[in-house]
């Protein structure tokens, strides 16, 4: 039950479990090894000419979870359910033993319902309402992936879907932490998933956002666009004191998160800088104390430049010595999953004191930052996660791996 006085609640929020499914692995160890080697999973699309993509091949949800009704859920929802299953196992939590009323869920999903909505609506036109599959209707609304995941794991404290495009999962981590800090649950799962949707890729291709596998570069002078990637990731969050009291070792700590908005693309740089500054202020950390920047740069030219300049403006004197990594160079833009993936890369890097390079980065476009071009030692201190969406949402998160917030 919720505490009457939120001020009494432990403010430190631990990441006590991590689950992931990516084309580069479904364990943190395998994934990290791929990143350290600079590998990427981007190949040319078989369906869209001149477009790269990163897909999870041979995904079989039954390998990870047996959930009633799973077969009717779309790929995004199945990916999300499997990531949550892995995260709970990583946190040494079994749903059967959890108090459902103390389990909350925040789902990062902007487009997770879209392929189901398109399929359902198209069938209304092609075969008529009486012949449509009625099961698809409730799965075609934006909150459906989150509702299905909450149902699968019996999350009864709350289930909220956050949709801020590429900033979704960074915002979701902030929301999940706040919900725990205010005592609305004892455990909060934050999940993001992104499955392939043909119509979204087609539209992005025609908007000139996508580039080929060969030309895909992030933060590089030759960046020419992004590619979409499939992935899922989930974090189990709990108050540090709760994690310790059940004998769990926090893998990381969420120190602070801040969201801002840019009314036009030209304003992303200053809005992201404000988000970073607010997050650092909330964490009571000077920019010089950061050990790592886990950037959301995706290969989109203007977006990469805004991101780099915002990081420069945030770090100031520390810019040239603070390592910058960018996991989208390995996996493409996984949109709603990106902030979670950037965060888990940061946590693993801090804990192992080794950060991965930015895959295929050869000539940085914006000078002045310490872009990682090979794997690099780093201090186990603090990491800053940066995220933006093309609709203007900016989000920044400060993480620690040594419980020092």
């Amino acid at each position, binding site marked *: 039950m*919720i505490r*009457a006085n*939120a001020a009494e609640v432990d403010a430190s929020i631990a990441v006590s479990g991590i689950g992931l499914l990516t084309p580069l692995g479904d364990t943190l160890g395998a994934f990290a090894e791929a990143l350290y080697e600079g590998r990427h999973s981007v190949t040319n699309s078989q369906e869209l000419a001149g477009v790269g993509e990163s897909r999870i091949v041979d995904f079989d949800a039954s390998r990870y979870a047996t959930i009633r009704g799973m077969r009717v859920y779309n790929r995004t929802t199945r990916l999300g359910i499997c990531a949550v299953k892995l995260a709970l196992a990583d946190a040494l939590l079994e749903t059967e033993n959890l108090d*459902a*009323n103390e389990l909350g*869920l925040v789902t990062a999903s*902007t*487009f997770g319902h*879209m392929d189901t*909505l*398109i399929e359902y*609506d*198209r069938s*209304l*036109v092609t075969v008529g*309402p*009486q012949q*449509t599959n*009625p099961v698809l*209707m*409730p799965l*075609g*609304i*934006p*909150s*459906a992936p*989150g*509702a299905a995941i*909450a*149902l699968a*794991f*019996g999350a*009864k*404290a*709350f*289930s*909220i879907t*956050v*949709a*801020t495009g590429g900033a979704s999962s960074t*915002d979701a981590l902030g929301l999940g932490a706040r919900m725990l800090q205010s005592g*609305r649950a004892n455990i909060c799962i934050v999940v993001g998933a992104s499955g392939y949707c043909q119509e979204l890729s*087609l*539209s992005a291709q*025609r*908007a000139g*956002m996508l580039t080929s596998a060969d030309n895909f570069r992030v933060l590089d002078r030759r960046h020419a666009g992004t590619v979409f990637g499939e992935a899922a990731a989930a974090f189990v969050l709990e108050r540090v004191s709760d994690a310790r009291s059940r004998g769990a070792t926090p893998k990381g700590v969420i120190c602070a998160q*801040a*969201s*801002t*908005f840019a*009314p*036009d693309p030209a304003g992303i740089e200053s*809005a992201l800088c*404000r988000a970073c500054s607010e997050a650092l202020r909330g964490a009571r950390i000077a920019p010089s104390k950061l050990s790592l920047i886990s950037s959301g740069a995706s290969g989109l030219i203007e977006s990469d430049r805004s991101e780099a300049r915002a990081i420069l403006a945030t770090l100031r004197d520390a810019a040239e010595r603070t390592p910058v990594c960018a996991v989208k160079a390995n996996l493409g833009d996984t949109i709603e999953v990106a902030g979670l993936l950037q965060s888990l890369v940061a946590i693993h890097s801090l804990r192992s004191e080794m950060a991965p390079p930015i895959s295929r980065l050869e000539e940085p476009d914006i000078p002045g930052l310490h872009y990682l071009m090979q794997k690099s030692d780093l201090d186990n201190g603090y990491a800053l996660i940066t995220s933006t*969406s*093309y*609709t*203007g*949402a900016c989000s920044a998160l400060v993480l620690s791996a040594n419980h020092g917030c």
Partner: protein
Amino acid sequence: MQRHVVITGCGLVTAAGNDLDGFWATIMRGASFIRPLQQFACPEMDTLMGAAVELPSSDDLPTTVDSIAYRSRCTQLAIAAAGRAVSDAALASGAIGLERAGIVFGTTLGQERQVADLSEHWVREGPDSVDSGFLRRCDNHGLAAVIAARHGLGGPVLLSATACSSGNASVAMAYDLVSSGSAEAMIAGGADTFSRLIYCGFRRMGALAKDVCRPFDRRRDGVSFGEGAAFLVLEEQEAARQRGARIYAELAGYGISNDAYHMTAPDPNGDGVARAMRQALETTSTTMVDYVSAHGTGTPYNDVGEARAMKAVFGDRVRNIPISSIKSTIGHTNGAAGAIESIVCALALVHQAVPPTANFSEPDPDCDLDCVPGEGRPMRVDTCLNLAAGFGGSNVCLVIKRPQ
């Protein structure tokens, strides 16, 4: 230290009116605006019933908004309602740092009509029908972004989706941001318009009212939909007082829960709704409730579950608490509903009266509540609960009180 949060601006567009005074007077009469729809249809379905918004021409949007082709009914309704709320709160007066003000936008379906448009073209043109703007048009965050851009907001600009409780969830999320000091002010609310996914889906489920919805009535047979949008401006109490803002009400806090019961059906015992209500009362130290704005969709299952939840929470006192649903007046406006009903609660505190449940005349023994039949009721109102329950089981209960 927790900061008190107050409501300093309200704006809405509904079938029952687009200004606060007119809206309040209309809903107090117990009128219903659920009528045959002229501007909206679904394949192979007879004339649809619903409550449509008539916007004055001054609200008509240009073909692009802020240089972006955001022309959509949902966007138009949202812009109109948010503009009224911002104006009502004098948010642009310079007294508030808009760089630390934001918006939480709630929607059930958002830009669903963009997909409907795509389907119509797809059957003729196939993949060629997908244009470069589709990705951006179907991104629901664009709904929040277009309002933030128009009003120069630089703080958190979020979109929450918890189905039909999205409006309440957005108000709750905004409450947390203001009460924690993360934002100076927040616009919170939601918008939705008619959707063929909803009409066709509810028809298949047998959950669409044959003529009009009758919440808590023995003859109720389903939901009637409406379109609408509503936004509230939330600020910290002392800051609002210092700038001389009109304070409608205090948003004292909220309770939240999830049924985790079924993708469409509510928990028949109302356990999740009761948990949200209890949490709302406990966290705000509320012991006396004068009025409950019910979710009250008019479906047989929802209303019984909600009535059971209220009996479980209030016990015998429940019969002394007026409980009404305005969904029989303006239809179920999905993501806008919670925000519109929050404004109803604020106006109930201002006018010291509660609105009726239109179309209610035959009490159901399973819903033996004081449903305020007929017309609105003048009475002392100090504390209101605003209850919303969403598809998939997400429940949010807001506590709205007379300002201290």
